[in-house]
């Protein structure tokens, strides 16, 4: 349902939802008191360091750790000989995972520069690093695959030649051909699409490797508790998946592993990966001592996870009247040395953009290939970022080709409320998808209000006369909210004797604000304030299961679990109150921290504290507590329209983003300020990807820019005038009408900026990032 502006005001029917209370973890964070993994220092803590492969592809023939072991202060050295040879995927996804099992704790083969060869635990980090340097390795260097286009060539080196490599879901996996995943879908008749089109455009687009750059590097601390159980303090998006994957990798029952997520210093998908926990834990098991493994920034760049690079070939057909007759989207995705999220990211490149345009004839074809380069993974946007760029630019090209204002072109073509797309059913996460129709969309409103804010009418097509040209561009976007029939979330709420509540969730606040918005949802139901909740997230011993922070699922899915648990607790509170007041439940209402009979002057009320005390100490004693868990049947897309205004200096090739407008329909925002914050962070990350973020490699596959000096991310100075517009809609299936917000806006800057540059100087930038060199080259080519 779209909420008209009038009804939007009526949406303040909510007391807590839609307001912006201070984050529940805010005071601890802003005073530096919050505890991150690096802030835990148990007695006897050892520090780990990892020996990493200098070769892109090599077999370990011999490894001699004796000198390292002899170094005073060294407590353990692990090589492939010292760890269980269990194959698993590092992708923090639901079991059975749609990513291939192709990883070991330590393998006897290195598949990229930076792959794990051995690990050391020592009394200090310095000793550990010194010991790493003393390990002697004899490598059999193998020819590498460094170009995804050559990965499937006959005779190409086979990267995963281990006999254990396999998939646990029926997905197309051909390791002998370096194919980590494949998906294709045809809907309708493409030949007819091209025949009936007035304009057919074909083009190649590409996006590079990029790093998440959470400011807290990957870190883990593991130890044995007094009962000998393995406890892992993790900076993770997926504590429950981490418990399962570590247990499997190290031959432990799940009951012997406890994962505690502390404050996590950013994730963006990079910590939806169980990458270091098993290695650190193996060192703890070997030494019996607490061990910390803390990646250097260089290791984060080279050896954690990245955004999968894609080469996209796109063909579209459009009629003069603007109708889209066909879309043929072909993607070659480079998953790097391991197949983490190899299939699902590229599936999302189809499923999170193709339904956006009304079109009957669609072909989607994608290969995800292994190379001997860094490993792809989940990254905010999850495949939609790459394909939204290609599709967003080509639709602009089409509008130009038929002489239609892109604004009008998008207005007539986007999917509407009540409509569906065959893509929803055809494309899922390693399996088929789930049919759904759009229950809420504010996209039309996003386009309208965004265009007004950027000044589309007055600015479009006014380049200016000097060497610095101006232009505006736009794009429309969608994402999802959770993975239907796969994701699951749980919540527990408990009443305390002063009328406060504990809210325990397995959902992981990694800076996204979920602890706060989940408390807001519960507060709305229970008639109290956000601050009345003591939120605890997440600990595999103490909180209910949750898949974790990914797939834009927390607000929508965990939100529903919290809402359901809160309603159950409310029911219990009313029952106790009914006993205390001797009035039927139906005549009572819960508001303002007390239960009162409905209607003015209807009699005496009891406070939550009195209710809690009564139930704990007085009569029919019991703990007021409830748990609930939820799955979803849908993945309602949030929608957005983004607009960029740029300046292009035709002398230097420099692009400056002057103004950026993100108009977003995330349903009913639970916390308005944080929904804006998610949007702003995503946009600025997207601007970095548009203008300068990319990995550069040597001819032997070594990453050349593995620090913030050479891999620049946006700093305060790069911020343009940035305006977020939240268009409120009411998603019928979401908690208080909410949909997701955290991912969608990272998909906008690349296409919006590219399209704005076209408006400014008439060049098409199809390969991100848009460096001055590329701009100058394109300007030269255009001049001829």
């Amino acid at each position, binding site marked *: 349902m779209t909420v008209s502006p009038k009804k939007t005001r009526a949406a303040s029917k909510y007391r807590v939802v839609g307001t*912006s209370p*201070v*984050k529940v*973890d*805010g*005071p*601890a*964070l*802003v*005073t*530096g*008191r*919050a505890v*991150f993994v*690096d*802030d835990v220092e148990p007695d006897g803590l050892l520090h780990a360091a990892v020996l990493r492969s200098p070769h892109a592809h090599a077999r370990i023939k011999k490894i001699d750790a004796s000198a390292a072991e002899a170094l005073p202060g060294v407590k353990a050295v692990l090589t492939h000989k010292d760890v269980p040879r269990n194959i698993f995927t590092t992708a923090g996804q639901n079991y059975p995972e749609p990513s291939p099992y192709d990883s070991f704790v330590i393998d006897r083969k290195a598949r990229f520069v930076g792959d794990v060869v051995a690990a050391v635990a020592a009394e200090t980090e310095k000793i550990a690093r010194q010991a790493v340097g003393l390990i002697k390795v004899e490598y059999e260097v193998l020819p590498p695959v460094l170009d995804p286009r050559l990965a499937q060539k006959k005779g190409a080196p086979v990267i995963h030649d281990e006999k254990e490599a396999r998939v646990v879901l029926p997905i197309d996996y051909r390791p002998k051909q370096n194919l980590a995943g494949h998906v294709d879908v045809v809907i309708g008749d493409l030949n007819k699409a091209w025949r009936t089109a007035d304009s057919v455009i074909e083009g190649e687009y590409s996006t590079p490797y990029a790093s*998440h*750059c*959470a*400011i*807290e*590097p990957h870190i883990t601390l593991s130890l044995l508790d007094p009962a000998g159980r393995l406890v892992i303090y993790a900076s993770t998006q997926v504590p429950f998946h981490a418990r399962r994957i570590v247990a499997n990798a190290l031959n432990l029952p799940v009951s012997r592993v406890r994962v505690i997520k502390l*404050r*996590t*210093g*950013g994730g*963006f998908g990079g910590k939806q990966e169980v990458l270091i926990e098993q290695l650190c834990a193996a060192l703890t098991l070997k030494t019996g001592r607490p061990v910390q493994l*803390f990646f*250097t*920034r260089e290791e984060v760049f080279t050896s954690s996870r990245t955004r999968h690079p894609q080469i996209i070939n796109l063909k579209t057909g459009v009629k003069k009247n603007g109708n889209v007759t066909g879309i043929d989207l072909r993607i070659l995705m480079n998953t790097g040395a391991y197949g983490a999220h190899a299939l699902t990211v590229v599936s999302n490149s189809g499923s999170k953009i193709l339904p956006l345009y009304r079109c009957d004839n669609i072909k989607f074809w994608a290969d995800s290939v292994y190379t001997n380069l860094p490993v792809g993974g989940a990254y905010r946007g999850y495949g939609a970022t790459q394909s939204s760029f290609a599709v967003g630019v080509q639709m602009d090209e089409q509008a130009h080709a038929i002489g239609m204002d892109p604004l009008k072109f998008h207005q007539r073509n986007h999917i509407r409320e009540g409509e569906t797309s065959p893509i929803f059913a055809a494309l899922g996460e390693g399996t088929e998808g789930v049919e759904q129709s759009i229950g809420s969309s504010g996209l039309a409103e996003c386009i309208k209000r965004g265009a007004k804010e950027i000044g589309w009418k007055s600015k479009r097509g006014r380049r200016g006369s000097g060497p610095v040209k101006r232009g505006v561009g736009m794009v429309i976007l969608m994402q999802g909210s959770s993975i239907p029939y796969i994701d699951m979330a749980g919540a527990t709420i408990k009443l305390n004797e002063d009328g406060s509540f504990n809210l325990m969730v397995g959902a992981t606040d*990694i*800076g*996204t*604000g979920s602890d706060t918005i989940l408390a807001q949802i519960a507060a709305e139901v229970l008639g109290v304030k956000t601050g009345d909740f003591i939120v605890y997230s997440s600990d595999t011993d103490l909180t209910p299961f949750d898949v974790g922070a990914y797939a834009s699922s927390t607000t929508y899915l965990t939100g529903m679990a919290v809402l359901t648990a809160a309603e159950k607790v409310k029911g219990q509170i009313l029952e106790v109150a009914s006993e205390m007041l001797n009035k039927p439940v139906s005549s009572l209402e819960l508001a303002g921290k007390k239960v009162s009979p409905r209607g003015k002057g209807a009699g005496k009320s009891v406070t939550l504290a009195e209710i809690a005390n009564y139930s704990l100490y007085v009569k029919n004693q019991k703990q007021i507590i409830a748990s609930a868990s939820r799955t979803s049947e849908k993945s309602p897309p949030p929608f957005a329209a983004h607009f960029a205004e740029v300046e292009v200096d035709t002398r230097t090739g420099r692009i400056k983003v002057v103004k950026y407008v993100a108009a977003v329909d995330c349903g009913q925002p639970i916390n308005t*300020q*944080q929904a*804006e*914050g998610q949007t*702003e*962070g*995503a*946009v*600025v*990350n997207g601007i970095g990807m548009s203008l300068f973020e990319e990995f550069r490699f040597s001819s032997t596959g070594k990453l050349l820019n593995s*620090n*913030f*000096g050479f891999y620049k*991310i*946006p*700093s*305060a*100075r790069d*911020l343009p005038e*940035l305006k977020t517009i939240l268009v409120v809609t009411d998603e019928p299936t979401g908690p208080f009408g909410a949909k997701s917000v955290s991912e969608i806006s990272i998909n906008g800057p690349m296409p919006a900026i590219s399209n704005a540059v076209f408006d400014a100087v008439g060049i098409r930038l199809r390969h991100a990032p848009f460096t001055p060199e590329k701009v100058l080259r394109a300007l030269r080519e255009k001049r001829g």
Partner: protein
Amino acid sequence: MNKTISIEINGKSSSFSVAPDEMLLDLLRRSGYRGAKVGCREGFCGACTVLLDGRPVNSCLIFAARADGRKITTIEGLGDPNNLHPIQDAFLKAGAVQCGYCIPGAVLSTKALLDRVPDPDEAVIKRALDGNLCRCTGYKKQIEAVKLAARKLKGKKK
């Protein structure tokens, strides 16, 4: 050879025994000032920012011994969770905190700025925050937080 140095941290003088190659960040963290964070150890991210004689520095790049006889302010020297410093309050109210890992550094850079320039314009604020990388917020609300903090502090002085 370890050396004994004396530093005034958050108004309190203490002496420390430090190795010649020990970094100020490590000394601070092992001495309980854990609000200074490790983000890169290369001087690029600003997560380790503290104030040395009132000026923001990347403590990961400074030898601890160089702080001998000088004054340091860490995030622990501003407010505490029950009694926030106006800058910290402004960061929260403006929604400028997401994961919080960059925040101690950004708050301290803000303090150094507002101690010198009580009424900074946007360009000056951006320059002051430029050394504190934040991947979460996109900086917009952090800049608003600095403006809000400036107003709060000015109001206080009157």
